[in-house]
């Protein structure tokens, strides 16, 4: 038996209709599906087009000032302290001028500046290298400019650590919930409102996304006594933009084109 072209097209058409129709019926009968309209943005959350920081180094006189800021962050985010620099996890950390700004070629920069401890954390770059290399999109850029990590997706490949030119990322070589040989827990006191991480994921500063959602500024900004100013870089009337306009500021490795969002005021107040 053979069918002609017309008959074939009829059968094909009818079976396609039946196929589409039946999937519609099946999906229509399924109940209890969640809909996107059931999710809302938290009221009172801080929003911006591109969050940025201005760090005024004149407010950080000594390592103590920086340590206070580091502790304020690490304690609320359950950042473990493994007690050795090889395994170190750092969201905010302290480093020397020559390592923070290796391309500053001013040989006559003051000794005071060159010997000052600098405070560094994730730059939340506008063109983040870490986001480009992440194979699972565990690291991604939010609409407000925060470079965020989805720990549920991180597979621990450490491409982002290789890509980040600022060393802002740390890998959990050990279990952050464990203890050292003396039984001292790596996380001194757990904050029960925030998760820890697990062995085998990369972590970094997340711009205090959980505080922004509650309408609070990042913890480091609060603990810095005005040393770190937080605001919208895209808004010309914001405090950060006014500071950047008024003072001489530098950024870390701007020549790499990642457009870091942390501006350092290094010159003191008189030399605008």
């Amino acid at each position, binding site marked *: 038996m053979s069918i002609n072209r017309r008959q074939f097209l009829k059968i094909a058409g009818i079976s396609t209709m039946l196929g589409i129709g039946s999937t519609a019926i099946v999906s229509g009968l399924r109940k*209890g599906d*969640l809909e996107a*309209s*059931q*999710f*809302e*943005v*938290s*009221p009172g*959350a801080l929003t911006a087009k591109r969050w940025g920081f201005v760090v005024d180094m004149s407010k950080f006189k000594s390592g103590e000032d920086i340590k206070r800021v580091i502790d304020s962050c690490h304690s609320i985010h*359950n950042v473990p302290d493994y007690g050795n620099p090889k395994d170190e996890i750092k969201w905010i950390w302290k480093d020397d001028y020559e390592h923070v700004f290796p391309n500053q070629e001013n040989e006559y920069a003051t000794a005071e500046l060159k010997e000052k401890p600098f405070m560094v954390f994730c730059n939340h770059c506008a063109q983040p290298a870490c986001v480009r290399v992440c194979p699972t999109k565990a690291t*991604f850029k*939010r*609409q*407000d400019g925060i470079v*965020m990590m*989805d*720990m*549920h997706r991180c597979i621990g490949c450490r491409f982002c650590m290789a890509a980040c030119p600022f060393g802002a990322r740390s890998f959990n070589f050990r279990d952050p919930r464990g203890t050292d040989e003396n039984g001292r827990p790596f996380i001194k006191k*757990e904050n*029960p*409102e*925030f*998760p*820890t*991480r*697990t062995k085998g994921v990369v972590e970094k500063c997340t711009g205090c*996304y959980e505080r922004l*959602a509650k309408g609070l500024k990042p913890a480091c900004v609060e603990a810095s006594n005005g040393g770190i100013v937080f605001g919208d870089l895209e808004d010309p009337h914001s405090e950060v933009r006014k500071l950047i306009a008024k003072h001489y500021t530098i950024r870390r490795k701007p020549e790499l084109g990642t457009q870091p969002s942390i501006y350092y005021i290094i010159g003191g107040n008189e030399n605008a």
Partner: protein
Amino acid sequence: MYNAGKILIGLIIFFGLATFPFFYNMGKAIAKPEPKVDTPEIMKLAKQDRKCVESKEFMRAEHMQLLNEWRDSVVRSNTRVYVNAEGKKFDMSLQNTCMRCHSNKKKFCDECHNYMAVKPYCWDCHIAPKEKES
């Protein structure tokens, strides 16, 4: 058939070993899990407020999908408020919303998960509420 005796003995031993778990557990029933919702936090609430974010039947069948949707919504879209079927709003957070009422993880989560032999990795990172050892 060559070596019929050896093969038959081998088959019988294999059959015995393979079916041993079934014969061993025959007639024994493992206690059905009964997740408890009588935590002090829930008992403190007024009667009409003792409701989960969705109906009991929905939560029983779909809590894993709900949690996945919550996770993606909060982490990736930064939408943190959940509006349930009755129009009530909740902060989407496992640690700060779910476990604030269900403070008995061992009785509420683990009992069923162990029975079903599922191992969700929630608690690798999320901090479970402190429970008294019982």
